[in-house]
């Protein structure tokens, strides 16, 4: 009984602590995050270790590509200008890299939800699917041979042992700090700013036509939906169905956030649209493709409505996020690195 009580207190303290911690706090009006911080308590040293790893090409097989190569801060951590991300891995080449932000609220990762936890995400790009069992081990080995990483692991974990678990959890910690909640939209919601008339009209349209999937405040309902895109027959990507093997999941993809949408082009899982206008044209002219969501309504936007909607979508741009130096290449860490 006493034990249960004590555990209860511990759990309660953990909860209170992690709604607002010096390293992680939940923006006003947002739901509780999905990520379980009690299993990976945030600390500055771990976040900075994760940040170094995120920017270090040492994680790739031939030390040429870092996470940031495909997830660049200035485009909300997506791949600049590439419809299909280019890299070391065949599989990567079939999808557009998603923008990375507000990941603590996400339950599933990848466009089809093939990854079930943020900690597991880094395994995918780090490892090659054909030879997965040696690569992670090799990365850990490479890191332990540097002069840079053992001290960073010691600062983060108390001793310099490098393990797969520690590496993945540190990377999660950095990614969890990527919170975008300082857009004009947010200021309006907190009554610190006002929409223009155009933005206001766009917001109203958005709430009737788009919010059922792109639900505020995170602009996603975290479900897998079919938004009516026809199958690209050169890619044959059926989305969620490849994970669940259920026909009813055919052509369903994870609903992406629309925050910073101005910068995260090209759009959709395969980057098929270059401009927001193309996206709105798509929603305006959806044709049946079999399993499309019943949340999709006939839209037939007029050109004025498209202008209004676009004006609203641009209020989701968060320049403070895009230029926050806490997320950028950690020069101060790499500057101390002896050439090895």
């Amino acid at each position, binding site marked *: 009984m006493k034990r249960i009580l004590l555990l209860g207190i511990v759990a309660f303290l953990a909860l209170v602590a992690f709604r607002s911690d010096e390293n992680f706090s939940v923006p006003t009006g947002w739901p509780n995050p999905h990520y379980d911080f009690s299993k990976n308590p945030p600390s500055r040293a771990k976040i900075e270790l994760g940040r170094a790893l995120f920017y270090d090409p040492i994680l790739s097989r031939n030390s040429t590509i870092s996470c940031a190569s495909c997830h660049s801060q200035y485009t909300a951590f997506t791949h600049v200008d590439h419809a299909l991300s280019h890299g070391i891995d065949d599989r990567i080449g079939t999808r557009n890299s998603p923008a990375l932000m507000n990941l603590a609220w996400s339950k599933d990762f990848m466009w089809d939800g093939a990854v079930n936890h943020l900690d597991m995400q880094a395994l995918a790009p780090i*490892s090659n699917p054909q030879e997965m069992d040696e690569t*992670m081990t090799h990365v850990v080995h490479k890191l332990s041979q540097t002069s840079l990483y053992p001290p960073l692991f010691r600062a983060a974990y108390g001793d310099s042992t490098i393990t797969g678990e520690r590496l993945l959890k540190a990377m999660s910690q950095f990614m969890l700090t990527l919170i975008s909640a300082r857009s004009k939209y947010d200021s309006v919601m907190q009554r610190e700013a006002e929409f223009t008339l155009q933005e206001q009209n766009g917001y109203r349209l958005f709430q009737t036509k788009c919010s059922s999937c792109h639900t505020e405040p995170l602009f996603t309902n975290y479900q897998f939906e079919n938004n009516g895109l026809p199958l690209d027959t050169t890619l044959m990507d059926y989305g969620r169905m490849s994970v669940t093997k259920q026909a009813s999941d055919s052509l369903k993809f994870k609903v992406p956030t629309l925050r910073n949408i101005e910068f995260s082009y090209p759009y959709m899982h395969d980057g098929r649209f270059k401009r927001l206008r193309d996206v709105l044209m798509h929603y305006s002219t959806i044709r049946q493709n079999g399993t499309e969501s019943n949340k999709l309504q006939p839209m037939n936007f007029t050109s004025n409505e498209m202008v209004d909607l676009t004006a609203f979508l641009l209020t989701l741009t968060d320049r403070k996020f895009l230029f926050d130096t806490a997320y950028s290449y950690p020069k101060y860490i790499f500057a101390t690195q002896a050439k090895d």
Partner: protein
Amino acid sequence: MTLLTSIVVMLLLCLSAAHAQQERSDFQLNFRPFVGSVPLQLDTIYTLDKNQTIEFSTLKWYISGVELLRNDTVFFAEPNSYHLLDVSDEHLLHIPLSHLPSGQFTHVRFYLGIDSATTTSGAFGGDLDPTRGMLWTWQSGYIHTKIEGKSSRSTARNKEFEFHLGGYRSPFNSLQTITLPLPSSREVSIKMDVLKWINSIDLASVHHIMSPGEQAVLLSQQFATIFRVEAR
């Protein structure tokens, strides 16, 4: 920081209180893979009927959630119970259990594989560490059983076969629960006739399973039937 310290202190108190109640007592499970009646060794060619051959290069499997039962009730549940067994090293074929309460137990029960709650809870260390090579990457999940080798019966390139069996999402959850009766001794050998399992597969048509699905479930179910407590 003071918050953290008090949490740690409280946790330590809980742990030491729990510890004091338990008596020290030991029990060990030893896993012994065989090819028919011969102990299995890696990279050794075994000749079967009709001049067929078989050879294993990898044989690893997870045992988790180990519980000792007294008839139908749980007598002891190993905390944090995750074990990667690996034929490449004799030391990796034993599961010692310590701090058992005193008394008799009649059965052992364990999972073959890693349960879905653990699988969806992020990264872990020890036997679950991602460097152990037992995680898929593009699609999350542990490989519950990894068996690789060559056989004259395989029609694949170089006569290879590769079975990475796993899957935690229904309907392709391949986790198996195994319950075995125990003799009264404090050390028990569990014999696994891997040949019996491989004989249930038509290697001419099925020689590579690398992702979750119907076949992974079927082969996992069959693998679960080869665990036998060795009569002394």
